[in-house]
């Protein structure tokens, strides 16, 4: 990073006039883009976690729901357990307790639900082994042994969700690339404008023997530094905003923990150096092109 902005000598950066709208524009653009990048990054990482979790659960668990008259419930439950014990590919199966079912229903019906007095179906959680089971065969056996039992292997609702989460993650990364490209375009325009506005400065520098690489370097360092400073500001604000989002418990799992978790908090720190790198490359190209065009 320091190699991008360190001047050859202390005074060399003074050759570019100190103020200018284009420099402010660069800082603001880099800051705004860094702010947006933090959110795109948070979105990508969160949807990535979600997709991974859903995909993992999809591959391992399923549920059997038993809806039957109260007097037949125990018999059908025992029938389901027998079927499961003899079905290849199932690692374990257990019936959810009334307390677990109460917790599942609590978000909709509130606490202290008298679940024992309600015709709530029994739920059996099935965990498959690495080989997996034949879901169609299991459905047929359940239909024969326990007519009230329905196998839900979650495929129908989880697969599209996993697919959507994967696409959302991809969109997040595409957004980051687009933000970087937009930053480069804005900084290129700003640098070209600054170079054109400083044609007299460039003329003087050439008169005293400055090479174009020296002139370009001074402009590049100025824009790189401004972009870095702007990006630091934008990243700090964006990260604070993400940190202040309600967590998944408060938001009732709706946001599914949008934000950074664990080591992912390191990622935003990469944004300012990347913004500086983008600014460096954009300004360098703009400077070379513009200087070639100035006689």
């Amino acid at each position, binding site marked *: 990073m320091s190699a991008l902005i360190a001047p050859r000598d202390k005074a*060399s950066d003074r*050759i570019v*006039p100190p103020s200018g709208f284009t420099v402010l524009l660069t800082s603001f653009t880099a800051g705004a883009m860094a702010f947006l990048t933090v959110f795109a990054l948070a979105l990508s990482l969160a949807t990535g976690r979600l997709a991974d979790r859903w995909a993992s659960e999809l591959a391992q668990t399923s549920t059997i729901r038993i809806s039957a008259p109260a007097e037949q419930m125990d018999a059908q439950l025992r029938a389901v357990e027998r079927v499961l014990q003899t079905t290849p590919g199932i690692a374990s199966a257990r019936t959810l307790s009334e307390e677990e079912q109460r917790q599942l229903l609590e978000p909709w019906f509130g606490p202290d639900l008298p679940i024992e007095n309600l015709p709530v179906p029994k739920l059996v959680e099935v965990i498959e082994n690495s080989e997996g089971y034949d879901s169609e065969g299991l459905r047929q056996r359940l239909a024969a042994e326990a007519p009230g039992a329905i196998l839900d292997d979650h495929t129908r609702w989880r697969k599209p969700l996993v697919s959507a989460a994967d696409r959302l993650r991809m969109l997040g990364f595409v957004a980051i690339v687009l933000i970087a490209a937009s930053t480069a375009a804005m900084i290129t325009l700003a640098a070209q404008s600054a170079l054109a506005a400083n044609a007299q400065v460039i003329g*003087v520098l050439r008169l005293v*023997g400055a*090479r174009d690489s020296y002139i370009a370097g001074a402009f590049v360092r100025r824009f790189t530094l401004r972009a870095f400073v702007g990006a630091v500001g934008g990243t700090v604000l964006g990260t604070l905003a993400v940190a202040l989002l309600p967590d998944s418990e408060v938001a009732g799992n709706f946001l599914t923990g949008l934000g950074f978790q664990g080591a992912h908090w390191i990622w935003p720190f990469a944004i300012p150096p990347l913004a500086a790198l983008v600014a460096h490359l954009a300004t360098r190209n703009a400077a070379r092109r513009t200087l070639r065009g100035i006689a």
Partner: protein
Amino acid sequence: MIELENVAYSYGGGELLSDVSLKLSPGSFHFLTGPSGSGKTTFLRLCYGQLIATAGQVRLFRKDVRELSRDGVAGIRQRIGVVHQDCQFLDHMSVTENIALPLMVSGRGGGGAAENLVDLIGWVGLTPRANALPAELSGGERQRAALARAVIMSPDILLADEPTGNIDWDMSLRLLKLLIELNRMGKTVLIATHDLNLIRAAKSEVAARVLRISNRRLQLAGSDL
């Protein structure tokens, strides 16, 4: 050092200079005169690689300017000091920083450069104005600052384009004395001016050769000078 051979320069469909030949030898002192618009500035620009001749050949330190890259021209300019009539400073930098600019861009700002800089500013009489901005200087002070900047790299050649154009006679003589002093140090000096009094004043001090641009051609001036 600087050689022009059958050089012509055209711009906008018209020929400004035609069949110009000249060889500036080390330690020589030249005046270039002619009416306004005769092509004096164009001639000087050809001499430091700012313009490329449309015909003929310009050689700077034995190198054909046409074959020089932009960096090559930059390198040559570190050996040719140029003083413009409008001085051309960086307005946001102090007098000292402007004078030190050639050192800065060539990476020679270290060592004894600071001491030499102070001496040079004293030589042109600008010590009290060293920290002023260019806009705060008088016309004569600006010209002396431009001269100091032109010689700080100890160039072999000094080109001055109407250096006394915006200053009074006393200041013109003071500047001329500095240029003659540089010539006595062995520097080649070429001054473009339309001020014939300045040329007459110089001829009593130095063996100056006077050239005139007339009808697009370069010729030796007559005995009236």
